[in-house]
């Protein structure tokens, strides 16, 4: 029993255990529904690793949720629950899209501009929630949820403005090509490229995807956030406020100011996640939304699976992206509903919420043992 307690003290072990148990639950559900679990997970694996193209797509899919995950994890360190990451992502996409359509500069200016404007819009949006919390003590979860819906309708509104709406589509114009983050954007369409693809099956397969520099930016930002948290005085302040607000205040730390700053940064991270998508992936614009695309909401799950660690979000994001992308193969290879992946993820997050279960159980069993 002491061993279990020790294991649980290592957060990574608890997380791996939760992931394992998630797969066990998914196995049981699949088997009970008459599918062969091993076949299904085989399909999942081949959907992730089966072709270079798949791996590339998994990374593309993971890029935004790594960043929204870091956004959530960062705010959580300060004790704020950034469920508004979804809205921050949406306004980031809208802003990046608008500026990318309106402005046409050389790539060296256009790309940073698109990224920065998306980040700024997200920051502003996140800042609203932070400011309302600091100034009026309004629960950031409720405000975040409301702002998510406002962002969704704002996005649809912009989508239908004549200046931006692409005729005969349900989306907007793409941003100018100078803003694309995709690797070899121009060269891809040339005859030389076609020749290259024929001769190099692996690299060629990847070239067919939207492979872009976004993942590099995401990883760099993640490390930057991690350093900010653990190496700087600002990070020290944020963590102090997040762990014990009173003590931080009594030590002279301005709690309200830190709250707003945290949400500005968290919002910027979600916003830049969106501008990377706009700059990196087809169709390089936004589409009419009938429901959330969940790039921000998935960030919540990523952050929890990462145990709140920004660096952990890279791995959790890749796992999550892999499950989401590879999960589609379960549907067409085995015929089992791909929603099994969502059940799997939901179970993992639920079990992570229960990460303190082991000590509670040990305590209960201990008491029982003594009594009898």
């Amino acid at each position, binding site marked *: 029993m002491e061993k279990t307690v020790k294991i649980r003290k290592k957060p990574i072990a608890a997380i791996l255990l939760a992931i394992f148990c998630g797969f066990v639950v998914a196995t049981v559900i699949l088997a009970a529904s008459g599918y062969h679990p091993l076949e299904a997970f085989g399909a999942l694996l081949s959907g992730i690793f089966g072709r270079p193209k798949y791996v590339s797509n998994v990374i593309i899919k993971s890029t935004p949720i790594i960043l929204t995950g870091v956004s959530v994890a960062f705010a959580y360190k300060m004790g704020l629950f950034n469920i508004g990451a979804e809205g921050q992502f949406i306004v980031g996409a809208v802003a990046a899209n608008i500026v990318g359509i309106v402005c046409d500069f050389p790539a060296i200016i256009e790309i940073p501009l698109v990224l920065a404007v998306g980040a700024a819009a997200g920051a502003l949006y996140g800042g609203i929630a932070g400011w*309302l919390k600091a100034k009026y003590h309004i629960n950031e979860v409720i405000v975040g949820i409301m702002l998510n819906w406002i962002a969704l309708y704002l996005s649809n509104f912009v989508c239908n403005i004549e200046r931006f709406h692409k005729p005969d589509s349900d989306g907007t114009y793409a941003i100018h090509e100078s803003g694309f983050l995709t690797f070899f954007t121009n060269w891809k369409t040339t005859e030389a490229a076609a020749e290259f693809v024929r001769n190099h099956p692996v690299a060629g397969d990847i070239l067919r995807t939207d492979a872009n520099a976004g993942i590099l930016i995401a990883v760099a930002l993640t490390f930057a956030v991690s350093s900010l948290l653990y190496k700087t005085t600002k990070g020290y302040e944020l963590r102090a406020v997040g762990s014990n607000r009173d003590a931080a205040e009594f030590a002279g730390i301005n709690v309200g100011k830190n709250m707003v700053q945290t949400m500005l940064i968290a919002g910027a991270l979600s916003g830049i996640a969106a501008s990377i998508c706009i700059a990196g992936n087809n169709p390089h614009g936004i589409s009419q939304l009938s429901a959330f695309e969940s790039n921000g909401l998935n960030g919540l799950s990523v952050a929890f699976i990462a145990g709140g660690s920004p660096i952990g979000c890279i791995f959790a994001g890749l796992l999550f992206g892999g499950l989401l992308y590879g999960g589609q193969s379960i549907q067409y290879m085995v015929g089992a509903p791909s*929603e099994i992946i969502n059940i799997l993820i939901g179970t993992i997050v639920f079990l992570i919420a229960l990460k303190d279960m082991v000590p509670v159980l040990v305590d209960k069993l201990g008491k029982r043992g003594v009594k009898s």
Partner: protein
Amino acid sequence: MMNTITLLLGVTLLYSTPMVFGALGGVLSERSGVVNIGIEGMMTFGAFAGAAAGYYSANPWIGVLCAAAAGGILALLHAMAAITFQADQTISGVAINLLGPALAVFFCRQAFDGATMSYPVENKLPKIMGSGAEGMMANLNVDVMVLVALLFAAAMWFVLYRTKWGLRVLAVGENPAAADTLGINVYKTRYVCVILSGILAGIGGATVTLGIVAQFTQTSIAGQGFIALAAVIFGKWRPMGAYKACLIFGFSQALTVVLGGGTLAVPTEILAMLPYVLTIVILILFIGKSVAPKADGVPYVKGKR
């Protein structure tokens, strides 16, 4: 003109009803001290269970019962996490919101030949004036569930503020240690309240898929559970307050539906933002005094007093 007004009224009642059930669930759960942001997921699972059971049994009331059970089962998970294992209630709620829709669509594909939507339910929930209403009255011929929701809200008010069980629930949400010393079982009280909140949310989901649209789709429940949460706060954690808040949200949605058809200068999308903007504004204006139950969201650990 009168036609528009009655139409507005009818749509308001119709749209607010699922939220009322969700919000009542939220009130009950939070009054006992457990934050339940999983209402949305419970409503979704309930919406599917209601449609599926309603379709196969051809009896909408069996559908409602199954929806209640489905919501209750998810709520039991949340209760275990929040009460027994002192888990982070927000994370657990997020997990429920992931699980609800996932389970719903998974089983939907099982039950309806791989489709993500159910077949339309033949027997919908009855209307208050039967099937004979015409003209203006037809606008007001809403589902029976509209009345049931009002009835539930009134009943919850009565139980919470007039009976001994209510007194105990309120005490558990305000000061669980005090309740414990008086021999009130804090854990049991919270379990009952959270499970009831899931049952209510499940019924709320069924009012959509057995009444309003009579079919389960992936967007049957699109945010009603979250708006219900806002209604809980807006209604100051009181059943009738939450009920009124839901009416306001329902009304602003009705506005978009009824007036959004292009006759108005304001674009539909901007109109659709109204309820959400309204919520934030109202929170800024009225939240001044903290009225949340004091132990809301705080796991109770015996001995830590």
